[in-house]
């Protein structure tokens, strides 16, 4: 009975452990590859002109991505204006009414919203905004991104507010402070770091989204500040340039990818620092 001896069992244990460690680290190899290629191909195209100039015509050297940077900024501002107040208010409702039919339904809907594929959100923004306005626009792209931000903001707000101790609220109410002032002036400030984290996370989530912008913001080779006109965005520019047949455009796409990845990574790091530093500790 070779199979049952203790040494065989220990050997099996060791082999398994080695296997687990090997597979775990093999699965982060693609990440290293991706980061390596982005940095290798992207860093050479980054310079001041790249960040501050408009793209040039095919065949002309140089050119930049300033329209996409501005576009992404405008889209993010629109989506934050739409999603942040609503998300925080809904989060407050959920943490104040932990049980109840509406809370249950709202939580379910937040889950559903989080799972909706981004391309479907794009269709919705097209049907609601683009069709009724008759043109692709920055506004419709902002609506699409705003819908995608909502679930993250609602959930983080709800979860942070739940961590705020009940005594704080009791103390405020006992002093005769009205309920709404208690929430706005006592509970919300105490939970601010968590809420900010949620907003940053949601921004990080939507900055790289391309699918919902394909037929809403649509992209534009010009600098545009009008929210009722088509607008460019970093991920859209990467998509259009990467799938084009021109090598000059490919290198611009690598540069834009580098900028996008760095931006998303920095957002993630800031989020981590915020949660570590100002974690709700009571």
């Amino acid at each position, binding site marked *: 009975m070779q199979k049952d001896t203790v040494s065989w069992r220990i050997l099996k*244990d060791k082999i*398994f*452990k080695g*296997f*687990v*460690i*090997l*597979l*775990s*680290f*093999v*699965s*982060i190899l*693609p*990440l290293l590859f*991706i980061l390596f*290629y*982005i940095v290798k191909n992207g860093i050479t195209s980054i310079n001041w002109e790249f960040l501050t100039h408009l793209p040039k015509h095919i065949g002309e050297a140089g050119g930049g991505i300033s329209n996409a940077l501005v576009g992404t900024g405008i889209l993010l501002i629109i989506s934050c204006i739409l999603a942040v107040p*609503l998300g925080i*208010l*809904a989060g407050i*409702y959920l943490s*104040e*009414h932990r049980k109840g039919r*509406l*809370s249950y339904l*709202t939580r379910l*809907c937040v*889950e*559903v*919203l*989080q*799972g*909706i*594929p*981004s*391309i*479907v959100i794009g*269709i*919705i923004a*097209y*049907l609601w905004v683009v069709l009724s306005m008759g043109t692709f626009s920055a506004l419709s792209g902002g609506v699409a991104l705003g*819908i995608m931000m909502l679930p993250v903001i*609602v959930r983080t707000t709800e979860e942070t507010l739940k961590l705020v101790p009940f005594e704080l609220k009791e103390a405020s109410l006992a002093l005769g402070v*009205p*309920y*709404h002032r208690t929430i706005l002036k006592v509970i919300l400030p105490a939970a601010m770091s968590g809420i900010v984290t949620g907003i940053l996370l949601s921004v990080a989530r939507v*900055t790289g*989204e*391309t*699918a919902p912008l*394909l037929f809403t913001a*649509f992209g534009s080779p010009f600098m545009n500040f009008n929210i009722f006109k088509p607008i460019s965005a970093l*991920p859209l520019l990467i998509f259009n340039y*990467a799938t084009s047949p021109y090598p000059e455009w*490919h290198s611009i796409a690598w540069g834009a*990818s580098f900028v*996008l*990845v760095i931006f998303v990574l920095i957002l*993630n790091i800031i989020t981590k620092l915020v949660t570590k530093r100002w974690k709700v500790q009571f």
Partner: protein
Amino acid sequence: MSIQSLSKAGRSELFFQGVLYLSACFLVVLVFAIFLSLLVHSIPSINEFGVGFLFGKIWDPVFGLFGALPFLVGTLLTSFLALLISIPFSLSISIFLGEYFTEGTFSSVLKSAIEILAGIPSIIYGFWGLFVLVPLIRSLQIKLGIMPYGVGIFTASLILFIMIIPYSASIGREVVQLVPSEFKEAAFSLGATRFEVIRKVILPYARSGILAGILLALGRALGETMAVTMVIGNVNVIPDSIFSPANTMASVIANEFAEAMENLHLSSLVQIGLLLFVVTMIVNIIGRHIVKKMSVES
């Protein structure tokens, strides 16, 4: 305090409560409105093709023929192939982080790597796939003697597999950690090795949670658009092998929606969106339900 100011406070109180209530209602209305809009705009295509939409093999906008079968096959093939490849990896990470190295440098390195993997935008995966993975696959196909497309179902699955690892791994880690230590200690005290504990105690206990993680990863894979669109080849026919180019439900929407001029074409694309919405919703709700049930039980 005078009666007047009290009643004023009461009014702003009511106002505040009302605003909270409305914003919660808004989320519910939003989801229903999304569903209804998709449904209403699918009606022309539902009327025209009925159930046959799902089984139609031909998608030809020029002749106004719209059958979604090629995309259903494409989506199912890429998603399940990606899941199949990812399971050993995500399971290993779950066990690694949940049992072998719950803290320390090793685990925090792996954990941050997984987080970054989840944070990288899908367009970057697609771009990288197009310029690095596709040439690799092409040279592999030349060696194997198949048509060297480079793009296709297999390439898309490879990209998807990398993208969905974080989803199943993070839930897998949580449920592996949820296994009560009494169970593990009991098995250890009977002389079981770590491997035996993992196989006979941890995995059976965490089974449904691991399944839930896989379901959530599936939900993600089904709806993934950009990365797949860039490497799948975008051909509207049923693929005849896993190396042939194809199209998925999400990628056909991405490719054709902006150019869809005719009402029927647009409506058919919206109907594919509706299908995606319903399927991912079901997969997600089941997955989250299992996770919630597990964490409540322990």
